[in-house]
């Protein structure tokens, strides 16, 4: 609740600043996150972040409010991901073709006020990676996938990411609290990778981008999870030896406790 109040306060301050500087278009859109840090601990089962904002331009403009559309994109740190397709080989199903997508977001969620296609021209959507069909999925040069099958791989990739909850498209999920104040929720599933996420908000007027904001959301393991993970990554020998000692001790202890008479 305190976070909500703080965020609302932030939005209101932004509103004041926005009205004070009519000419500065970057102030037309102000956004805030319910939290700029997501901590992963042993009881982490996913969470959600709330994004608040104020689009003062809508009230200032003489045009219809319907002309304005919003899109909010949350992206996780980049990954290289290989998509494979199975085929039958000697009667057995094995992975045959593979396509490697480079520098694709590890997490991607888009929320919008309308259907993605109605917000702007597809070139604009492609440029800002707004919508699941508009993410930049660059492939590596080496690939054994036929050109005609490339779209199948793209679709399969996005579908598999959607199934794990790491990619999502939530059209018309941005709700307006007042004429200019809006809010949306982005669920973060339990399997989200750690790292710095970007939250980008775009305001369109009749298909034209009029304002945008960007925020950073940190997702990090803390406490025991962080110590364990960092030990495993940075001191793998120590981690391995520790695991062995722990295992031998547990086994030995059990042998002693349950000793047969």
């Amino acid at each position, binding site marked *: 609740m305190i976070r909500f109040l703080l965020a609302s306060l932030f939005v209101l301050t932004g509103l004041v600043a926005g009205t004070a500087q009519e000419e500065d278009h970057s102030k037309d859109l102000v956004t805030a996150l319910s939290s700029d840090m997501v901590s992963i601990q042993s009881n982490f089962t996913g969470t959600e972040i709330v994004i608040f904002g104020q689009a003062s331009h809508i009230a200032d403009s003489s045009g219809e409010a319907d002309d304005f559309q919003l899109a909010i994109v949350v992206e996780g740190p980049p990954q*290289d991901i*290989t998509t494979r397709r199975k085929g039958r080989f000697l*009667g057995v199903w094995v992975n045959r073709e593979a396509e490697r997508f480079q520098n694709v977001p590890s997490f991607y969620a888009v929320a919008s006020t309308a259907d993605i296609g109605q917000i702007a021209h597809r070139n604009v959507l492609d440029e800002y990676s707004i919508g699941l069909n508009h993410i930049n999925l660059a492939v590596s040069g080496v690939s054994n996938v036929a050109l005609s099958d490339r779209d199948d791989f793209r679709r399969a*990739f996005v579908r598999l990411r959607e199934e794990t909850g790491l990619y999502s498209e939530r059209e018309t999920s941005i709700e307006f609290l007042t004429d200019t104040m809006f809010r949306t929720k982005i669920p973060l599933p339990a399997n989200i990778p750690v790292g710095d996420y970007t939250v980008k908000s775009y305001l369109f007027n009749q298909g034209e981008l009029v304002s945008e904001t960007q925020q950073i959301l940190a997702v990090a393991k803390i406490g025991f999870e962080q110590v364990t*993970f960092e030990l495993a990554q940075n001191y*793998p*020998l120590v981690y391995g030896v520790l695991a062995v000692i722990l295992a031998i001790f547990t*086994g030995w202890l059990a042998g002693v406790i*349950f000793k047969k008479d």
Partner: protein
Amino acid sequence: MQLYLPIAEIPVNIFVIFAMGGAVGFLSGLFGIGGGFLLTPLLIFSGIPPAVSVATVTTQVVASSASAVVTYWRRKAIDLKLASILLAGGVFGSLIGVILFDVLQSVGQLDLVISLSYVTFLGAIGGLMLVESVRAIRRRKSGAAPSARKPGQHNWIHGLPLKVRFRQSKLYVSVIPVVALGAIIGFLGTILGIGGGFMMVPALIYLLRVPTNIVIGTSLFQILFTMAAATIFHAMGTKTVDIVLAMTLMIGGVIGAQFGARMGQNLRGDQLRLLLALLVLGVGLRFAVDLLLIPDDLYSIAIRKGAGV
């Protein structure tokens, strides 16, 4: 209760994992096996990434064999010299295993190799055990006396050079088959996430003719240290040993094993072997079905670089 696994990076129901460890521990106590070949597939089928399952079960096998080694150590039923030579081969095999594991993972054929190996080895060993146990049961029913092993019996293995005397096992054999056996089991154990006792024990008995009272202790001792090496290699190479998952499995496993061992004393040896044979064949069959049926989803994805690797 959901618990987040720091290395696998997914939450799991801790009671389900604990129960799995317990159930497999029960079976391992019942049959006198490590149970890795049951636990690894169980984890994979329940959604833990195969790499994490395999690496973590090697750690769990360390715990379950350590518990049994204590007992055999007290009974002095371990041939340390034989175990050390097997172990030397085992560590080498395990190292090769981790390297190949990494290569297979990067070319996307790890799951296939794991499945094919399970089908092949479980099918073969399970089949042999089934035939042997059915014969033994029939023999017992018909009242015929089991044919005793002739002490002087030799096979081609006993003709190899570099012979060494193993006093406790009353053996005089070449080190070549001993090192090779250790290496093969260490290699398979590392790739498949199994201790390999169910392969090691028959091999020691039928190929090297190690006396039965020494076999299990020696095999367990060798498995304990080969799997300890495999855990360290996996921790350094694939970085997929999940200590939280391992600990949950271990505790479930050692408790289950005590109940299994008690129940095992009430069953006859040949009946136990028949049940174990069916279990081994069942797991092998499950993998075979997955390879032969059209998969639900032809596509799969694997993260190669960047966040979460």
